[in-house]
């Protein structure tokens, strides 16, 4: 089966290209656009399509594998794993907290106060749940 997953990269985002690919796979998995057992695109056609170095895509897949999100089956390719996070709950909390710190600082500089920030966070969470539901074919 083919997975509806489009990659887009930017050389001016300040994020290394391989990490952009990692983030996009993580987002697609969180949103249910790709599900456990789904294959990721093969390295060569994806590299050609994005016109990036083959090693960049290989590095992204290796990073996803080390994060426990995908597994490589020899001769078959890269697949989304059934249980994505191998981390303990406290580690997972810490990783989310680190990501949130950046958003909180950003909000501060944009004069978004605590209540408004929490409202935005709720909205974004609901949006993700809705996307997952749509991807699963359920109307919320």
């Amino acid at each position, binding site marked *: 089966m083919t997975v509806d997953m489009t990659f887009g990269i930017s050389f001016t*985002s*300040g994020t290394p290209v391989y990490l952009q690919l990692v983030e996009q796979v993580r987002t697609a998995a969180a949103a249910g656009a790709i599900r456990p057992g789904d294959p990721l695109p093969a390295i060569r056609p994806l590299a050609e399509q994005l*016109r*990036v170095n083959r090693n960049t895509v290989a590095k992204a897949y290796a990073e996803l594998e080390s994060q426990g999100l995908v597994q490589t089956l020899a001769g078959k390719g890269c697949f989304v794993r059934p249980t994505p996070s191998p981390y303990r709950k406290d580690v997972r909390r810490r990783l989310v907290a680190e990501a949130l710190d950046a958003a909180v600082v950003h909000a501060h500089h944009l004069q978004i106060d605590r209540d408004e920030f929490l409202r935005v966070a709720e909205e974004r969470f609901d949006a993700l749940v809705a996307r997952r539901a749509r991807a699963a074919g359920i109307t919320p």
Partner: protein
Amino acid sequence: MTDPVIDIQTLVRRFGRTDAVNGLTLRVQPGRCYGFFGRNGAGKTTTIKCLLNLLRPTTGRVQVFGLDPARHELAVKSRLAYVPDHVAFYPWMSVRDTLTYCASFRAAWNMETERALLDRFRLIPGQRTGHLSKGQRTQLALIAAICAEPELLVLDEPTSGLDPIVRREFIEAVIGAYQDGDPERRTVFVSTHLIAEFEGLIDEFTIIDAGREVLTLDADGARQRYQRIYARFAEEPAPFALRGARVCEQRGRELQVVADRAAGDVLEQLRAHAPEVLTTEALSLEEIFVSTLRGREAAA
């Protein structure tokens, strides 16, 4: 650390009184795609000719696969392939005969890749090379280079003067057909001033100017190091000093700055002036190239 595929040390190549290359040092590790950027006449082609023993260094040292190309020409050339800017074949030979002729000099020849690339480039095997367009001649040269499965692919301005579709297909073939073989033994050394097209492929680069190295960086590091910062203020700010910013452009309430390494520090300084908008964006490799060489002109 593995041995470099290309090792150039304080290379000088003089033509009469002109130093085309003037003390260049660079090193390319195996498996890398290395960009060699410079303006016309910066010394790129002269350097490449020294790698291929088409020119001898005046002074300095050039090694390919750890060997001196002048003393071990055959050993070096059997492991690399070269696609120049201007490609010439025997015009009376067909595409098919040309490839057979090229293959006869090579220890390895991948027929499957040959078929796939002829197909992809829509080249007709029976056509005489004298009737091919410039783009088709370059495509044929690339097929001949890739099918030999060399450890090093040297490209000198390979896509200049070609149309956008041919340029795109060229780069895709380098990524797909060449790089896919054995990633650890597939090194690309590409000189170009069409930097944007090769941006995704490049993982390290050297900018040369007047025969000397100006900047060598890995591509991701370079894009993190150089940031364009844009700020808009409520009112036109009184002039203020900005540490760590290289190029400044101010139009009324708007300010554009290029930070080299010090993006965080520059952002802090700008925040102190309470901007309405403050954004930052990495420079592309082409912009880094332009900004680096402009900076030198300004300093000269």
